[in-house]
């Protein structure tokens, strides 16, 4: 069965390592924070100028001067630091963030990503997404494998305006965990109960299946 939003977040959280500085985008990526394994520590970077984002505040703790990139009120963890937007993107662009997780509309076999604009419909802007995809070495894109109408979002060529070119190597959808290399998708894992055939069916770009494809494990 297709993964829930929480399950996608949970699977991504398995990629976290102790001591990782992580930037989580808006939407499903934000949920990853709820599934950080108990035995490791990660620090969350919020591109509006906070490293070491804590939990949401209690009513009493709410501070209008302390928000995350999604404009939500937050708190700071011990060891947090505050900086301006140029410094924040110096970190991001300079490749200092260990893992970036963000959503997308489309990804293609060449690692291109489209995530910020649907011409004529949605033109809110790229925010920090273009800097994040250009600056990070280690990115996981989370999205549904196909649209509600069954149209694949894993394409041979992105159709929407790009957010970044050739920068995506890993995609986690509600159906599969996929690696991108040498111009092809490679199936690494499938969601529990989802068949390889279903994934092939909903993947428009070339998909390589090598050997037995394991199911994702959730403990």
């Amino acid at each position, binding site marked *: 069965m297709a993964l829930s939003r929480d399950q996608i977040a949970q699977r991504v959280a398995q990629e976290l390592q102790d001591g990782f500085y992580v930037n989580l985008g808006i939407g499903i990526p934000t949920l990853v924070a709820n599934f950080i394994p108990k035995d490791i520590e990660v620090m969350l970077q*919020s*591109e*509006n*100028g*906070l490293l070491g984002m804590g*939990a*949401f*505040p*209690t*009513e*009493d*703790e*709410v*501070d*209008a*001067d*302390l*928000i*995350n990139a*999604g*404009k*939500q*009120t*937050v708190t*700071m963890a011990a060891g947090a630091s*505050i*900086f*301006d*937007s*140029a410094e*924040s*993107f110096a970190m*991001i*662009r300079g490749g200092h963030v260990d893992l970036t997780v963000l959503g997308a509309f489309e990804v293609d076999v060449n690692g*291109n990503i489209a995530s910020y*604009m649907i011409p004529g419909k949605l*033109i*809110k*802007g*790229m*925010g*920090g*997404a*273009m*800097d994040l995809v*250009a*600056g990070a070495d280690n990115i996981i894109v989370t999205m549904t494998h196909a649209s509600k109408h069954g149209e694949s979002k894993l394409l041979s060529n992105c159709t929407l*305006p*790009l*957010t*970044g*070119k*050739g920068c995506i190597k890993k995609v986690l959808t509600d159906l599969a965990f996929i690696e991108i290399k040498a111009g092809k998708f490679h199936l690494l894992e499938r969601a529990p109960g989802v068949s390889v055939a279903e994934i092939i069916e909903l993947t428009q770009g070339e998909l390589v299946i090598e050997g037995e494809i394991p199911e994702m494990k959730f403990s």
Partner: protein
Amino acid sequence: MSGFDKVVHSYEEAMAGLTDNMTIIAGGFGLCGIPENLISEIKHKGTRGLTLVSNNCGVDGFGLGLLLPDRQISKIIASYVGENAEFERQMMSGELSVELTPQGTLAEKMRAGGAGIPAFYTATGVGTPVAEGKDERQFNGRDYILEEAIVGDFAIVKAWKADRYGNLVFRKTARNFNPLAATAGKITVVEVEEIVEPGQLDPDEIHTPGIYVNRLIQSTFEKRIEQRTTRPAGE
């Protein structure tokens, strides 16, 4: 009084000299750390044809959104917009020109403007609509595009504390674009919650040295919250 005393006592004085068709750089991220009262003064003045440089454009009826109903903004350079209906209407109808700029590139353009760097290369935006018409060049085998600095006729900034000489301290994530905007205005106007005497701020803890600040005014702030998100107490 000292020639370094930047304090002014009215918003009229704070924004004196702002005229139609000028470029204004504004600090703030969403509604956090925005120069609320300086924006209200611009609305009050009725200045038109403005080019606004700001990460966002406020919401309906608050922040930079206040400048939309009277169509005071003719162009905005921002990374993320459309949190308000009037903005979208003006953008779709072509009344408002929007230059979408990646957030990090926007921050760096402001810093560069203040720092006498006319242009810099970045990988951000390569192969995207942002790269159109821009110089491209390889360094160490990777493609980069050339982005130019931004300088404003005015910069409007919100800080937490200041001394009379314009040395600024920001509070938490209300810092964001404010220190960068402060460096990039030909005239930089700052509003703060508290003004102290020179010598009362620790020189090691000043975020923006007063050399960048031309005018300073003390005020109170509504600090509207866009996404009030809480957890239950005791968790």
